[in-house]
């Protein structure tokens, strides 16, 4: 660390339809530091990283690398300049070996262009060794590796490209605690060797564990950069949410007031299932529902969507009272729903991928009561590409797809229907680990674009990694609200099991 700036952002702006994701963001990253970029979902941190990695182009502003302005027109260019990103959704080639993946695109070869297997293995081995990973089977196919192992490979690939800036986008979302510790060890090794690391997260614990300096973004704007030694968790959280934790959890924070409430639920009840449920969902927010099985989460959210009955209560969508008696009403109001039971409630097994995709928004695809098949196909292709649905063709019967791909098709329905509020019930249950990471990334991306998301999961780790706020339900009632920036798994588990009367340690007593 010599104190000079390796990267400088000057007035970077980026807009999506309806949302200003980044608004004249300026700050600098020093050579060799671990620089954390924190903010809630929709704060713009992922958008900013995609700009550095060359995946998005900014609408305005400049990026300076080593003091000189650069244009990062694509990922290839960024890589050439030594900037590599390890995305949330890992992009290794499952059918290829570990060694092949590490050196993909830069295979050692002789003058005839024939790949030199021995040198390939040797160099892959060296790269892994520099990460402290010896004894890895280089010939093994990537398909069978865990997310943590794939992440390591992705980092190795970045090193093989001689990168000196490494971007890690919420790397712990799909990792176990042990894997997370191992990852941090490797990152520290890289740090000691002088690699600059940009670390994106919204989890205070991780950020304070690993970083030298912390930059906070809120609603697309730069809030401030603090050296870790001078910062406290309270301060950073306050910068992230624009108010104190107590105000934040009661929906009074500056940030939540700036973002209007898109869904207001008041006093919802159904005999024997849930009672007196009230909460707000804000634009661009990811709201988690934690609780034990049978706590009434599925019944509650199903009733908000009109798929299950309720006895009492009101729902307002975008400030307007919404009378939702049937899913059709909910869809008209801009809601989308991914049910927990994919087989029973999600797919039409014998129908094609295309039909399964477009079924809720056929009315948008018709001209004079006739379905415009070309428009339908275009829409289907676009969605399949965006969600990277893996299928031999859109005519394939959906039942032939893997669970993860089926789930992507179900999610894509609601992107196609233009839903602004998505209710996801256990969206990653029973799907393979790569699809899971992809869906995590998609959810964050949607929040960045201004969509609002409610998510149920029985994996508390997943909720902490993805959500902004988490509501904990127990016996049909909401017992507590926590912020995922500071809450721990134990806190949430205790609330889910014993309720709020239990000896709750406030996540952060000073706030």
């Amino acid at each position, binding site marked *: 660390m010599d104190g000079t700036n390796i990267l400088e952002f000057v007035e970077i702006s980026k807009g999506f339809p309806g949302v200003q994701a980044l608004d004249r963001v300026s700050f600098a990253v020093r050579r060799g530091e671990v620089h954390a970029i924190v903010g809630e979902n929709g704060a713009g941190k992922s958008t900013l990283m995609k700009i550095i990695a060359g995946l998005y182009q900014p609408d305005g502003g400049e990026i300076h690398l080593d003091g000189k302005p650069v244009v990062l027109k694509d990922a290839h260019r960024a890589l050439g300049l030594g900037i590599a990103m390890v995305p949330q959704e890992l992009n290794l080639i499952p059918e290829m070996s570990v060694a092949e993946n590490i050196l993909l695109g830069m295979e050692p070869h002789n003058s005839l262009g024939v790949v030199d297997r021995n040198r390939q293995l040797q160099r892959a081995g060296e790269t892994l060794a520099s990460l402290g990973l010896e004894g890895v089977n280089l010939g093994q196919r990537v398909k069978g590796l865990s997310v943590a192992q794939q992440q390591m490979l992705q980092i190795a690939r970045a090193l093989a490209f001689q990168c000196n800036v490494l971007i890690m986008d919420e790397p712990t979302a799909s990792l176990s605690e042990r894997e997370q510790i191992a990852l941090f060890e490797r990152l520290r090794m890289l740090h000691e060797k002088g690699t600059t690391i940009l670390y994106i997260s919204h989890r205070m614990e991780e950020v304070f564990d690993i970083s030298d300096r912390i930059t906070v973004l809120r609603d697309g704007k730069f809030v401030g950069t603090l050296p870790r030694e001078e910062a406290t968790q309270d301060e950073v959280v306050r910068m992230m949410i624009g108010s104190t934790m107590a105000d934040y959890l009661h929906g009074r924070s500056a940030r939540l007031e700036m973002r209007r409430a898109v869904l207001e639920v008041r006093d919802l009840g159904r005999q024997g299932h849930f009672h007196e449920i009230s909460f707000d969902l804000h634009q661009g927010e990811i709201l988690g529902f934690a609780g034990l099985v049978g706590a009434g989460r599925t019944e509650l959210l199903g009733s908000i969507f009109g798929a299950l009955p309720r006895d009492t209560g009101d729902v307002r969508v975008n400030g307007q009272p919404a009378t939702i008696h049937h899913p059709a009403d909910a869809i008209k109001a801009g809601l989308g729903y991914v049910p927990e039971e994919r087989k029973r409630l999600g797919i039409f097994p014998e129908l094609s991928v295309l039909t399964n995709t477009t079924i809720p928004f056929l*009315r948008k695809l018709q001209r004079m009561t006739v379905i415009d098949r070309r428009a339908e196909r275009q829409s289907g292709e676009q969605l399949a590409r965006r969600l*990277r649905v893996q299928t031999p063709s859109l005519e394939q019967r959906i039942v032939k797809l893997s669970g993860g791909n089926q789930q992507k098709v179900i999610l894509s329905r609601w992107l196609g229907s233009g839903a602004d509020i998505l209710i996801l019930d256990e969206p990653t249950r029973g799907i393979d680990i790569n699809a899971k990471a992809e869906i995590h990334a998609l959810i964050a991306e949607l929040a960045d674009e201004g969509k609002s998301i409610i998510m149920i999961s029985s994996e508390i780790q997943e909720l902490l990694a993805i959500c902004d706020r988490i509501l904990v339900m127990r016996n049909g009632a909401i017992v507590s609200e926590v912020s995922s920036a500071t809450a721990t798994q134990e806190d949430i588990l205790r609330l889910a099991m014993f309720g709020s009367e239990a000896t709750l340690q406030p996540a952060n007593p000073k706030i």
Partner: protein
Amino acid sequence: MSEESPMNRGWGSEAAPKTGWLRRTWETIIQSQALVLLLFLIIISTIIWLISPRFLEVGNLAVVTRQTSFIALVSLGQMLCLIAGVIDLSVGTTAGFAGICAALLMHNTTMNPYLAMACGLLVGATVGLVNGLLVTRVKLNPFITTLSMSFIISGLILVVTGGWAIPNLPESIQWLGKDSVGSVPVPTIVTLIVAVILAFVLNRTFIGRHIYAIGGNKDAALIVGIQVNRLTTLVYILSGTLSALAGVLMLARLASGQPTVGDTWLLPSFAAPILGGAALNGGAGSVLGTLVGALLMTVIQNAIVMTGMTVYWENVVIGLVLVAAIVLDRVRTAKRG
């Protein structure tokens, strides 16, 4: 990153499999139940023609297509029910009852005979509406509901006719059943028009898609915002109306109200769509397949006459064909796995 960047992996980047049009056409033929059935129909017809050359005379073909049209209409109604994942056991008796109601109106009142026929259609629609409401709102089992409805209606037919035919109907309506345009019988033309409209609605409108979706997975259909109850009721109304149309066309053909019309239509109404690719557990079926299936049923009946077998074999053969159709459905389901 190389050209084969995994970022582009997946469906979007892969080119469509390149096959010749000949191969594609062949695959379409193999996959289309209707076309396979058509092939089968041609083979059977050839055999019959070898035994009895009169089979392919224009006169006989007109008889066959005219007969087919009645079966085809009730089969199209049944097909809609099967696609939506329900069944209608009252199609035959509804046809008879609609004809009897129209005949009574013509016989006992001075009502315009065409209006009387329209009333017959309305009767069919009403029966369908009642079936639909019982199944979707009262949540009764479709099988028992429509079976009971069938009994009620056949009882009503006997109550109002005393088992006697209603004679002396106006001659002005008979062209609908008896005449031909060129050598194509009028009922055949009516059936083809209905079939074209139905095919269009099923394949090109969201209502058609929604009906397939309901049969494919009723619970998932609700989640994507489909009005399952309303559309299922609509399907029953259409089934009742199409059956009634068959009934009043038969009335025009016979020029009298026969209480036994439609008694033998129930089994063919299942055999035709299932032979044509409709699935017993819903979500599949095609208009073309159903038409070819209905034609096959009639050809078999006609062959019994033409080859000089005793007509009492008819029921045996129809029963066997239905069993064959169900076996086919079974095989198809098993193949889907």
